[in-house]
């Protein structure tokens, strides 16, 4: 087997296990809260530096997997340790390692109890996330996917808000129920495709329609919960509200992307015919997410809940773009995911900044914050505008690409013109402005009447520090998204080709072949 690895050393393994080793080292050797904070930060920065060559050395001319690694792991079941990234997964790895640094910094002062466990949980979480995005063996993917539950369960449950236990158990059970079905789907593919777990082999194997249909449903159960799509989204507002700020950041920034990434990595290339068949269904759910959930967001009185619902609405754009089968829409979906990683993360951090001062997330408890925190008000305005997808922000690029791609798309499974879908989705531009700016108005603008608000201090340098890189990234992707688009161009084109090439003829052939063979003998 030929492995494409331009670097010649196992960079993905290093990226995955460096945080885990760091967590173990911190557990065993580091004493004292401050030492733990600095140690964690160094591990996170080191991991980010290690992942950087993935972007710098990335070959944008091929859709082939890169930086591949392959080792036999459990030959008894033909489970292999197979890693590799393409233009779709690589950006998420960088995003993960970057957001982890921001999470660590954001937790610097607001986490005071059990600092060591908190930091360890985050590093373990980073390991599982990078693992999910680089696994090319379906079982390995499943392991990282499931293992992610443990640190996240603890993060929400230990350091969350009042209702944390309810939220974390709901989170755990929803995701576990979904992934159990995913395991079944993976097993079904394993037997069908000749006892292999290689995701690349699954992409090549001609599954017939019935198999694709059921496997798609099983995968849908797992991915839709993670995205989350309406109607299985209800764990997200609870988990977000109760999670500590950094937990919300990683949840919105990375975890939600895992579901959409699953659709891109499994459903589209492995089950193209079922994916086409389910287009109307997926489009309908995406539109519900965009329109209905936006309306729900408008009615929230808790800022974190509002941003959580806004996340669901934005993920509606992602699933919509994913199931349009056009280059522009799909690239838009990926850009949307990355952009949402920055913007939602920043908005949760904004709420965190206010929460650290007043210990309330209720919109009604604020008002006139601009008078005491002018710098903060400006920063929050910036990210609110990005959430509304104002031109010049990264979200604008993502949404406009999805809309344009949808407008011109012609997926096989749709009877209706996609123009109407695009028009429906475009209402989000108005609706997101409504809920975001209305929240901004009630929280930041107005007269200073509440005594508690009067006592608020403006941001410290450290707090301002973690917004700067996010602002720069939002602007950079808003004005010059070409480098990111170039990275995924070839991979997305390859994916579109896989997703629009029916496997049914090959499946008929594969079934007929033994019979023909038998006839010959």
């Amino acid at each position, binding site marked *: 087997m030929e492995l494409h690895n331009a670097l010649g050393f196992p960079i993905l393994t290093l990226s995955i296990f460096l945080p885990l080793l760091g967590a173990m080292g911190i557990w065993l050797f580091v004493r004292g809260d401050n030492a733990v904070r600095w140690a964690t930060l160094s591990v996170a920065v080191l991991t980010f530096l290690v992942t950087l060559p993935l972007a710098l050395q990335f070959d944008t001319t091929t859709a082939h997997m890169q930086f591949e690694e392959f080792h036999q*792991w*459990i*030959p*008894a*079941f033909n489970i292999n340790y197979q890693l590799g990234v393409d233009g779709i997964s690589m950006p998420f790895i960088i995003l993960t390692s970057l957001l982890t640094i921001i999470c660590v910094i954001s937790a610097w002062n607001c986490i005071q109890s*059990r600092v060591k*466990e908190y930091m360890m949980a985050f590093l373990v979480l980073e390991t599982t996330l990078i693992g999910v995005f680089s696994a090319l063996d379906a079982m390995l993917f*499943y*392991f990282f996917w*499931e*293992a992610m*539950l*443990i640190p996240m*369960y*603890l993060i929400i*449950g*230990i350091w969350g808000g009042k209702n*944390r*236990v309810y939220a*974390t*158990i709901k989170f*755990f*059970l929803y995701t*576990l*129920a979904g992934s*159990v*079905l995913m*395991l*079944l789907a993976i*097993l*079904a593919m394993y*037997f069908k495709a000749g006892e292999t777990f290689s995701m690349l082999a699954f992409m090549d194997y001609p599954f017939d329609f019935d198999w694709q249909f059921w496997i798609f449903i099983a995968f849908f159960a797992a991915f839709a919960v993670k995205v989350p799509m309406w109607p299985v989204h209800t764990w997200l507002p609870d988990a977000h509200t109760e999670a500590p700020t950094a937990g919300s950041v990683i949840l919105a920034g990375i975890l939600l992307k895992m579901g959409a990434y699953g659709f891109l990595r499994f459903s589209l290339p492995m089950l193209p015919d079922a994916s086409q068949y389910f287009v109307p269904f997926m489009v309908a759910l995406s539109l519900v997410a965009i329109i209905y959930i936006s309306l729900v967001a408008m009615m929230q009185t808790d800022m974190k809940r509002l941003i959580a619902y806004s996340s669901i609405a934005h993920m509606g754009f992602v699933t919509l773009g994913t199931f349009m089968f056009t280059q522009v829409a799909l690239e838009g979906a990926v850009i949307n995911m990355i952009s949402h990683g920055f913007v939602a993360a920043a908005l949760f951090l904004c709420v965190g900044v206010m929460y650290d001062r007043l210990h309330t997330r209720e919109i009604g408890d604020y008002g006139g914050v601009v008078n005491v925190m002018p710098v903060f008000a400006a920063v929050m305005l910036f990210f609110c505008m990005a959430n509304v997808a104002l031109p010049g922000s990264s979200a604008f690029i993502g949404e406009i690409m999805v809309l344009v791609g949808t407008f011109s798309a012609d997926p096989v499974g749709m009877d209706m013109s996609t123009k109407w879908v695009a028009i429906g989705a475009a209402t989000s531009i108005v609706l997101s402005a409504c809920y975001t700016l209305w929240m901004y108005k009630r929280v930041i603008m107005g007269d200073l009447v509440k005594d508690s608000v009067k006592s608020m201090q403006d941001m410290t340098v450290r707090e301002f520090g973690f917004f700067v890189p996010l602002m720069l990234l939002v602007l950079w992707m808003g004005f010059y998204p070409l480098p990111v688009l170039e990275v995924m161009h070839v991979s997305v084109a390859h994916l579109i080709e896989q997703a629009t090439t029916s496997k049914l003829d090959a499946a008929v052939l594969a079934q007929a072949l033994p019979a023909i063979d038998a006839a010959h003998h």
Partner: protein
Amino acid sequence: MANVTFPFPFPEHLITLLPEMIVAIMAMFLLLFDVFVSKERKTMTPYLAILTVIVAGIGTTCLRPEQTLVAFYGFFVFDQFAVFAKLLIYAATALAMVISIDHMKDEENVGEYYVLMLFAMLGMMLMVSSNNFITMYLGLELMALSVYVLVGYQRDVLRSNEAALKYFILGALSSCMLLYGVTFLYGVSGSFEFTAMGQGLNAAGSSADFAVLLGLVFLIAGLGFKVSMAPFHMWTPDAYEGAPTPITAFMSVAPKVAGLVVFMRIVVDALPALQHEYTTILTIMAVLSMTVGNLAAIAQRNIKRMLAYSTIGHVGFITLGLIAATPEGYAGILVYMSIYLFMTMGVFAIIILMRREGIQGELLDDFAGLSRVRPGYALAMGLFLFSLGGIPFLAGFWGKYVVFIAAVEAGHLYLVLYALLFSAVGAFYYIRVVKYIYFDEERVAFNFVENRLMQVTVAVTAIAVVVLGVYPEPLLNLCRQALGGLV
């Protein structure tokens, strides 16, 4: 089956029986030893008992036969399969003894406790080596009678007495059912020996349908009772709760191993002609076990009761391996049991540690806030619980995986779907314990007495759970090899 039968009963036959003889002699010696030595010397009894188990383990490993040896005119079989099962039973017994030492040291006549454990182990050794319903029944009763007494060991504790009595009455009833079923099968086939009975049943064909079916149902009911399959699980929660905690640990692993191994031998050798019938019955029992075990566990406040129901659920999952009726399925059962051994022993070791001044430490509330006081124990307990819940990278996942994949391969897709859903339900009550440990505030002060032996036990089992979770390949191969004796 490639049998090498010795021409004479002595002395070669005795060699195959050497580990059993060591255990029997040592058990009787310890009984006398405990009576005649001074009070200070009595503290040696547990260590001598553990030494006996280790010697038996070395003996079994050294005598490990390449081929299947059938001794004593077909009454006793010694093969890779029996060797593997015995090693599991030794491990369970030895670990249960280790975690008993401190817990039981204030009980009266504690020497007998270890002697009874040795006798129970001897019974199980006979069971897994039996090739004949007579040997099997002897082993089974030796085990069962010893365990009845062990469950009721704390004579002055009311619930211990209650548990022992319930267990005894239901256990005696189930033994009757088992015997009753065997008589029917014997009547039709004309033999007590497993293989001969299989041939007899095959030859009888459909002429004796009713008698065979009746016999089969009673046989499975009797065996199902011993391994706590629903609907014959009623005794389990009471017996688990009432028994001294090390005995709960012991009986949730060792007798289950012995029972399932005998179950496998019987279905492979004696019942191949009835595969359709017994898989149908077992499917119903598996579904019931998974449902009852996992749902009832949610309602428990006492962790020993919760683990009793969880055992029922796990036995339901394991039954899928029997239903698959393939070598992969049987290997899966061995893998599952090996992994279950470590998880369960670890969990019970921690439960034993929870007993502190004035409280038993068996309620979920007693675990509240453990992570703040003893992060090491909390981490280990978390690992065991996530492993029992089947989260990957921990050993428990592989146990489920191997039996599920065998069942899928054998065409039981819907059953596996059901099992998967209930393993998700099961995860709920395991992670709820993690909730108490990590999320809640301390309610009852933790004033542990340090105990090096327990710490080592917890560490060893926790490491085993992680190592087997990350790299299960050697265990998988070992279990496949062990099947060489069976199929």
